[in-house]
């Protein structure tokens, strides 16, 4: 078969044109849609989590991107589950994002990830806590950060190993009271804590309250009556502050106090003051002050954060988000693709030991795609600052436990 010059030209042009978009898509930036609340009452932490994403983007772009492509973040505002679905539709439909990441709020993650599946997009979760999210077994979903179960686990370890030793008691002799706010968040964590304590042979007292309660003195009086060695609380910021104020007013002074998830920010410091907080334990995401051997590069992360935002991190959620995206890059590299099936498969093959990333995390996903090597730390208020104290390797040089039992 012979071609005329005109036919040859037409075919060549068509081939070139057909190849053009393909080549361009291969070199175009990978667009990551960051689903978080950026307005309303949860905006502060939505912004903070996304700062971690943005720093991870800067980090990878400075190294030439991932699989030869630079990375971009596009924000999708979602303050509720319904808005989470709409945000995904907008990010995929209008902004043409390739991957979705999130989220500070479990309910939003739940709805947005299902919506992402409708578009065959990966939903890479870094910060939402509820264990149920991974238990759903959604094929496009993985969580790089700790779940509520890891928070419960770390708190129980902290109680049995750290608190018992400091109080000079055998772990099984510890008297523990667990206070929690009565929504799914507080209830699920306490349920897991109760199971773990039971395994260790301990019976605990449990109290609950509404996060919207005007007064929680009754909860404090019930705990005070039980005379615990350790009072643990899982709640939100405002009710945590209210509980601590009621404890102060009622002269409730347990030898050890441990707060889960909150109580580690300036919001609690301003409310209670550094003297009252001295020695209070916190189960929290690892912070940039961790020992460099435990979390290599954490100091560099802090430097990058300060350089970009001209302030210190508001909360440790941002470093957890930063590390989460770095783990995502690893999975994309192995997959050589951004298709969710390939990325999930690649993530499942990751086997990075603890201490690989800034937060001290490793990467080893379980069958439900929960990273089993992402663990919170036990920190402590010391002189108005929060310092990691447990596990021992996480504590920075020169940091030791103070004021335990509390004076």
């Amino acid at each position: 078969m012979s071609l005329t010059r005109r036919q040859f030209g037409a075919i060549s042009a068509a081939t070139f044109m057909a190849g053009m978009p393909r080549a361009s898509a291969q070199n175009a930036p990978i667009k990551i849609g960051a689903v978080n609340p950026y307005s309303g009452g949860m905006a502060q932490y939505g912004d903070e989590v996304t700062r971690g994403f943005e720093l991870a983007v800067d980090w990878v772009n400075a190294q030439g991107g991932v699989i030869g492509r630079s990375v971009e973040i596009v924000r999708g505002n979602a303050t509720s589950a319904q808005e989470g679905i709409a945000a995904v539709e907008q990010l995929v439909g209008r902004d043409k994002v390739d991957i979705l990441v999130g989220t500070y709020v479990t309910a939003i993650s739940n709805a947005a990830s299902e919506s992402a599946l409708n578009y065959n997009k990966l939903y890479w979760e870094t910060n939402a806590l509820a264990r149920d999210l991974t238990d759903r077994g959604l094929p496009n979903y993985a969580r790089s950060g700790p779940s509520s179960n890891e928070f419960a686990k770390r708190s129980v370890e902290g109680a049995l190993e750290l608190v018992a030793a400091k109080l000079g008691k055998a772990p099984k002799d510890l008297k523990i009271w667990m206070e929690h706010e009565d929504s799914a968040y507080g209830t699920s964590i306490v349920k897991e804590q109760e199971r773990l304590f039971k395994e260790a042979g301990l019976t605990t007292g449990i109290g609950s309250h509404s996060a919207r309660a005007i007064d929680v003195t009754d909860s404090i009086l019930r705990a005070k009556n039980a005379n615990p060695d350790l009072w643990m609380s899982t709640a939100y910021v405002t009710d945590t502050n209210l509980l601590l104020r009621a404890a102060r007013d009622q002269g409730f002074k347990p030898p050890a106090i441990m707060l889960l998830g909150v109580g580690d920010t300036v919001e609690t410091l301003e409310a209670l003051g550094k003297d009252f907080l001295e020695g209070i334990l916190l189960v929290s995401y690892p912070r940039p002050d961790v020992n460099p051997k435990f979390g290599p590069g954490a100091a560099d992360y802090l430097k990058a954060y300060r350089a970009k935002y001209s302030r210190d991190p508001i909360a440790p959620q941002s470093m957890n988000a930063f590390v989460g995206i770095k783990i995502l890059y690893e999975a994309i590299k192995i997959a050589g693709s951004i298709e969710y099936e390939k990325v999930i498969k690649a993530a499942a093959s990751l086997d990075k030991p603890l201490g690989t990333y800034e937060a001290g995390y490793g990467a080893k996903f379980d069958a439900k795609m929960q990273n089993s090597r992402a663990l919170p730390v036990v920190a402590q208020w010391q002189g108005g600052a929060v310092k990691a104290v447990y596990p021992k390797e996480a504590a920075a040089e020169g940091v030791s436990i103070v004021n335990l039992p509390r004076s």
Partner: protein
Amino acid sequence: MAEFVNVLAVGLLLGGIYSLISVGLNLIFGVIRIVNFAQGEFVMLGMYGAFAAKMALGLDPYLAVGIVVPSLFVLGAVIYRMILMPLQGEAMMQVFATFGLLMVLQNVILALTRGTTYSVNSALSTMSVTVGPVQIGLVRLIVLVAATAVTIALGWYLKTSLQGKAIRAVAQDRKAALLMGIDVERTYMISFGIGTALAGLAGCLLSPLYSMSPQIGINFIMPAFAVVVLGGLGSVGGAYAGGFIVGMTEAIAGFYLDPALKHAVLFMVFIVALLVRPAGLFGHAGAQEVGLREQS
């Protein structure tokens, strides 16, 4: 016994908080016949006002009362004049307007603070008084004393001052008051201003107790409605007494039953009280008929 006395003290102090919040709400209802959903937001504004006064002028929240209360009186009067007065005669629309106001105020503060929780401490925040087996935070005691003083002062003002008598006259019969030469609209405006100012006072006095968020007003308003209904719609003394009924119910149910169940118990008491005495313990028969009195 000591335990029971302690629980009663907790209920009494909580009752003081509820009374302080509810007295302005009940005044507005009693005079203007508006169920003001935005009252909790006025308390919230009072708290943020105390915070702003601390930040800008270094004022203790108790001293901020001097700025916040008059400011909220003016705000209340302006809101009445600009929003509620044009809806006079549309009782349901006025209620919806106060709900709209709730959303506006909450979202404006949300936009300004981006949801950050703030706290404002007083020099008295950490002080407490011990009476026998009971330890009482001084800030809570001040709220209780203030609630009592406000109730007495408001009752005295309504009984003895000319403007107070005008308010009572308008509350009793708007048309007759109008015929007697009372400026009814002005009286409404002043009443709404006083109700708002009292919410501002509550906000200032409560600010050392709570970490403030834009949504905190909602937490106050639901029990406050129970207080005014139990105590008696439109009765200043009823709001005071209702506060203690609610406070005691919550404290006893919370301690002896379960803190998670205290609101369920409270609203069961509320429903029973409504069935037995629809006008509340100190209210007048018919006061519960919101908006049925002619407004035009």
